[in-house]
């Protein structure tokens, strides 16, 4: 590596962490939330901590090849000790093996698709996989609303939403709920009238939606316009304050399960929300919360490893993390480097996420 000169100049307790993120293009909103969560955590850690963090952001544009280049650069040019990112599951499938091969920890904060951590021993995630969250939601909603027949919608060009859809179908089957129709759309679509008109004519008890909040909020709006009043059960993507901001009153009754629950009566959570609000003038969403936690988890492991440069040690210590208390709740890695954590089922009421009881 030709970058050793600059590394030497830095004090020994500075850890360089690379962040390949979706910062421009269609998904830039998610990348930005991740960046903000990380930067907030960084400023807190650097203010008090023994370990200082240097974050190096690289834009991946949500494209696989860009992600590969970014990860390669971070590892081989910037000599980072670990990587937080990339944003999309597809990017991780391509970049994860590279980091693993180079022996650098790579941790996704939003990569919820199935099989992510199987691509390499150095691949971690603190994003709650859909395979854990959705069954929880479906079970609770079925019980609560006595669901018999539902309609399902999902974004079919988004790997993560497709993965969520598959889990939805499984859980619905397990709970004995009939699926009337499956409708698809694409990320960034704005017109859902055709699908929803069709769904309206079928009179389902509820609609399951696997998509990001932007499409989700437009779906909610249109659905209410067309007179569909039933509950909407969403996946992780619903979990953003933007949902209520865009959909307004139409968001009432939307259900999602998430480890991130801003209404939680927890000092840590409330302090985070306040600090975030102060710094960025908006409420944090789960992307921000999970990346915020991710950096703390990383620092935790760095401290235990006792080195800011030893990649192998960092990996082994990271895999041992247990009982970490973050804003998304109690956290541990399981043996497959997936998170083991609890999720709460939330419902929108009066423009707020509240726990569904």
């Amino acid at each position: 590596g030709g970058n050793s000169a600059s590394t030497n100049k830095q004090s020994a307790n500075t850890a360089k962490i690379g962040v390949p993120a979706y910062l421009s293009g269609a998904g830039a909103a998610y990348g930005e939330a991740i960046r903000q969560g990380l930067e907030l955590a960084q400023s807190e850690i650097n203010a008090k901590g023994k370990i200082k963090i240097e974050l190096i952001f690289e834009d991946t544009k949500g494209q696989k090849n860009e992600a590969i280049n970014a990860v390669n650069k971070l590892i081989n040019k910037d000599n980072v000790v670990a990587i937080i990112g990339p944003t999309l599951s597809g990017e991780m499938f391509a970049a994860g093996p590279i980091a693993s091969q180079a022996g650098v920890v790579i941790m996704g904060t939003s990569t919820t698709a199935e099989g992510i951590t199987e691509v390499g021993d150095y691949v971690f995630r603190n994003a709650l996989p859909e395979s854990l969250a959705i069954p929880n939601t479906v079970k609770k909603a079925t019980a609560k609303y006595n669901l018999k027949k539902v309609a399902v919608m999902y974004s079919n060009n988004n790997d993560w939403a497709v993965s969520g859809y598959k889990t939805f179908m499984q859980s619905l089957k397990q709970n004995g709920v009939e699926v009337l129709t499956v409708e698809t759309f694409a990320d960034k679509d704005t017109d859902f009238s055709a699908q929803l008109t069709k769904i309206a004519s079928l009179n389902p008890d509820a609609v399951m939606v696997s998509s990001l909040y932007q499409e989700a909020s437009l779906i909610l709006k249109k659905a209410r316009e067309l007179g569909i009043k039933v509950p909407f059960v969403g996946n992780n993507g619903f979990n953003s304050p933007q949902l209520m901001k865009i959909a307004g009153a139409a968001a009432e009754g939307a259900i999602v399960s998430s480890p991130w629950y801003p209404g939680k009566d927890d000092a840590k959570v409330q302090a985070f929300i306040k600090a975030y609000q102060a710094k960025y003038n908006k409420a944090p969403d789960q992307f921000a919360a999970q990346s915020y936690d991710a950096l703390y988890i990383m620092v935790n492991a760095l401290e235990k490893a006792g080195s800011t440069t030893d990649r192998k040690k960092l990996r082994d210590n990271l895999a041992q993390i247990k009982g970490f208390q973050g804003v998304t709740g109690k956290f541990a890695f399981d043996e497959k480097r997936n998170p083991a954590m609890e999720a709460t089922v939330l419902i929108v009421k009066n423009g707020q996420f509240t726990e569904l009881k």
Partner: protein
Amino acid sequence: MDFILNPYYLQIVMFMAINAVLGISIYLTLSTGQLSLGNAGFMSIGAYVSALLTIKAGAPILVSVLCGGVAAGCMALLIGLPVIRLQGIYLAIATLGFGEVVRVIVLNLKITNGALGISGIPSMAVIFGKQLSEVGLSSGMGGLTLQQIANLLVLLVLIAVVAVLVFFCIRVHNSRVGRALAAIKADEKAAEVMGIDVTYYKILMFCLGAVVAAIAGGLAAHLTFYIGPKDFAYHRAVEILLFAVLGGSDVVWGPLLGAFLLTALPEVLRFAAEYREMIYGAILVVMMAFRPQGLLSTQTLRYIKEKLGRSRVNDTSTQPG
């Protein structure tokens, strides 16, 4: 050597090679004046076919890549026959539509795993590594680790592919067939009246372009472990076209140069962080304003050759040996 051994740079150079192959594929179709935006679609056919063949059937990489090429070639023949009579931008959109149709089908098929894409594709570097260790090179050689040697081998393979294609293009360009292609590009109707079987040559080049694009796709699939439908969407089709137009589509060196520059540019611009895209866009505009015919044209090439010829003469006169 250090530079090329750094996996970051190595990876970029590999992407350059892949993009160069794509550039050549669009050069081939453009050589009869056909503006096709379907090459991203053919690329995806090549990528999926070859990835599936290696994963499911355990075929050797080279074989599966070639099969991908053949599959795309057949597809091109099938859609080429009706579509080829469209002109200019109409053809562009029809082929772009073809690319979209392929993408939607890939999204819906089970075997392609929809939007989730195919992960865990055996990479060339890994396979070469294995083969090397089988022949007893497990500890590396000449100060290089096994992995580094494998990577260099991959690079060598890619460079060889590009070299063969360039050779092919140059030879064709300078032949009777090349002249016929140029005539078709200049005036189709007149070319036909001059006795050139326009349809035949157009379909030939359309299919060749498809095959080459598919080979690029197959190689790319075995470079990056993972392919998904996103890799082959509309933006990719346009990007491929950019290589040729920016570099110049008259001579095969043009798309090559275009591919190199446009692969390197985003990496060079990383320092500019959030202004990266903006600068990239501005550069495109400025380049077109100054070199609308593309960076390299027949004239520039002639000029360079003259210069080179002269300097070679000077060289030999000043420093013998």
